[in-house]
């Protein structure tokens, strides 16, 4: 299963679902919905957290949280 944490900078993906209900609530509010396109922008110098582009703005999150967002196979 591919998650947001697996994306390389510049790669895009479509959100499929979440595997952590608590974190998904926060992510949903931030506009990360199933069906939304996500672009991995860059990672912090130590590899974590990362910055993704979602519905027109930049969102940063830790890899731990990025792993809970699974992507549909392109």
């Amino acid at each position, binding site marked *: 299963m591919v998650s947001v944490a697996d994306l390389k900078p510049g790669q895009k993906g479509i959100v499929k679902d979440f595997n952590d*209900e*608590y*974190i*998904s*609530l*926060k*992510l*949903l*509010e*931030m*506009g990360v*919905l*199933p069906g939304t396109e996500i672009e991995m*922008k*860059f990672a*912090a*110098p*130590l*590899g*974590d*957290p990362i*910055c993704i582009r979602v*519905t*027109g*703005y*930049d*969102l*940063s*999150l*830790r890899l*731990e*949280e990025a792993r809970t967002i699974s992507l549909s196979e392109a």
Partner: protein
Amino acid sequence: MSQDTINIALVGNPNAGKTSMFNQLTGLNQKVGNFPGVTMDKVSGAFTYKGKEINVVDLPGTYSIYPRTMDERVVFDVLSDPEASDFPDVIVAILDASNLERNLLLFSQVKDLGIPTILALNMLDAANKAGLNIDISALEKEFDTKVVTINGRTGEGLDRLKKQIVSVKKQKSECFYDINSFCPGLIPIIKDRFNIDNDYVAYQYAQQTESKSYLSVEEMQFIADAKVEHNFCDRQYQTKETVDRYNLIREKLAKVVTKSDEELGRSFANKLDKVLTHKVYGYAIFLLVLFLLFQAIFSWAEPFMDLIDTTFAKLSSGVSQFLPEGILTNLIVEGIIPGLGGVVIFIPQIALLFCFIAILEESGYMARAVFLTDKIMRKFGLNGKSIVPLISGVACAIPAVMATRNIESWKDRIITIFVTPFMSCSARLPVYAILIALVVPNEYVFGFLHLQGLALMALYLVGFLGAILSALAMQKILKVNERSYFIMELPVYRWPKWNNVGTTIYSKSKTFVFEAGKVILGISVILWFLASYGVGDEFNNPDKYVQQENPELVVGSKEYEDVLVSYKLEHSFAGVMGKAIEPAIRPLGYDWKIGIALITSFAAREVFVGTIATIYSVGADAEDEATIKEKLRAEINPYTGQPMYSLALGVSLMIFYAFAMQCMSTLAVVKRETKSWKWPILQLFYMSGAAYVFAFISYQLLK
């Protein structure tokens, strides 16, 4: 709604320009109060328009009506309690036009609460620059609301907004999203029990039962029972509601927003991000920012602090000449004025620090600094957002503790507040300076490493280690039901708005002076009393004893007066206390004289130098370090016959000052920020305990 006053509440996403708008509306006519039950400050203000008094409450920035942090709870609290005096007649939702979709989620939820809501559309220029064209009348139609376009930076549209506020009418508008499909049985029950006429408010009673501060235990139990009975599943409903709302919003937005050229003008921000979060440049720039911050706090603030210092000293002596001699004059001259000075002296550092922080926040850089350091800080149970308070702590723990507010996670925030005072603040510097000069040789090793400089650096390091190791320990001990996560918007880069920076400096300094100032002043007066009064013949007739013990001194001479003052201090309440604690501090190598200094240092650490000067009869005003050092060097330990200020004692004392919680101002601020005495008291015992243990170990090892 009474005729002449209108209450409005500002809601909106973080970074949507809510604070700018609030400042534009109210100017400096703001006051800081408390929301019940949370640490969040309640910032409110007022203005008049067309003869109406309009009260504005600025609610914390949030992405949805469901609270994710303790502070966000106030949003629904304020918007759902019609009994409260500040219950809004009108809600003004500030929306960032360049990010309409996400901003509309909160708007749609707030609107469904049934309070007349105005949509204030901000940052239209940024949206246009990004290639978004927004059809305002379509927006009004699709979302069934009045839209006012505003510009929080220039104040454009302010008048239209005010006009809209006073002319808004209470009318039933159709709800945006009907939640009755979730749990149709429960909503009428809650509506009936709590006399609510809005479905969504009733539904939120069920969703947010625990966080509502004004419900009684019995009322909460009622809701909890009803929820079980009707099989209410909070999170599933919440998920479905959010997804459905977003889908509705997207559907409607398709008729409102047209994109011309996607992501135009983003290239600059992308380039900037590349540099600012780069492996090498990113950290280099971060260190440069830190360096500037230190410069500001230490160098730029110094002339102002010196000025304040001399002004208060002059004020004291001026007033003492003007007033008749007596207890009251002494209280004013030696207690109240220096106490006030002790408060005011911190203002330059606090103002500069918050100036820096406000600029970094406003420009969007702070989020990048947090992004850069999160992984490192996480290892120690902290959060990227802890970096600001820890750095600020090197200047002064007071503003540093105040700067923890933007840490959402309660646990991370408490840990940060708890460990920040370990950072070597500027008040420790005079103490370190004199002790290092006393016990560390003024020599170079290998020709270039200055021993005294190394010692000072080591002390800063000790403080930093104390902070992060305590954080590590607390992370293990502290049990909270709050899962911490790090999901943070990286806002677009913007030029800071100076008006906002100025308002921040003003309101933070004001809060500090009035909140912390009260306690600092109070304890200063108590300490003055302890050091100036005593019982017994020795205190009341010191001349007799001093003349007996020092027959060679000429009565009335400078030396005589110094010895007299020292003798009085020895027999004052503070002196008695110093002697009383001597058995406890002897294992650390201290005598009662140092004991007195430890007690008076509780007002502020730098008082150590002045007290030591008084005890060794240097004359309290003679802050001549050379004289103090000479006196200290000549002091003989009565038990060993060796010099009192040996390396062992010096190190023990420095370690003690590095760790001990001897700053009542910090304790006062921690109490204010955590809204409980629990944390400051724990901090006092934990830090002072650590100070005692480590001072003991270092003295016994080096003795």
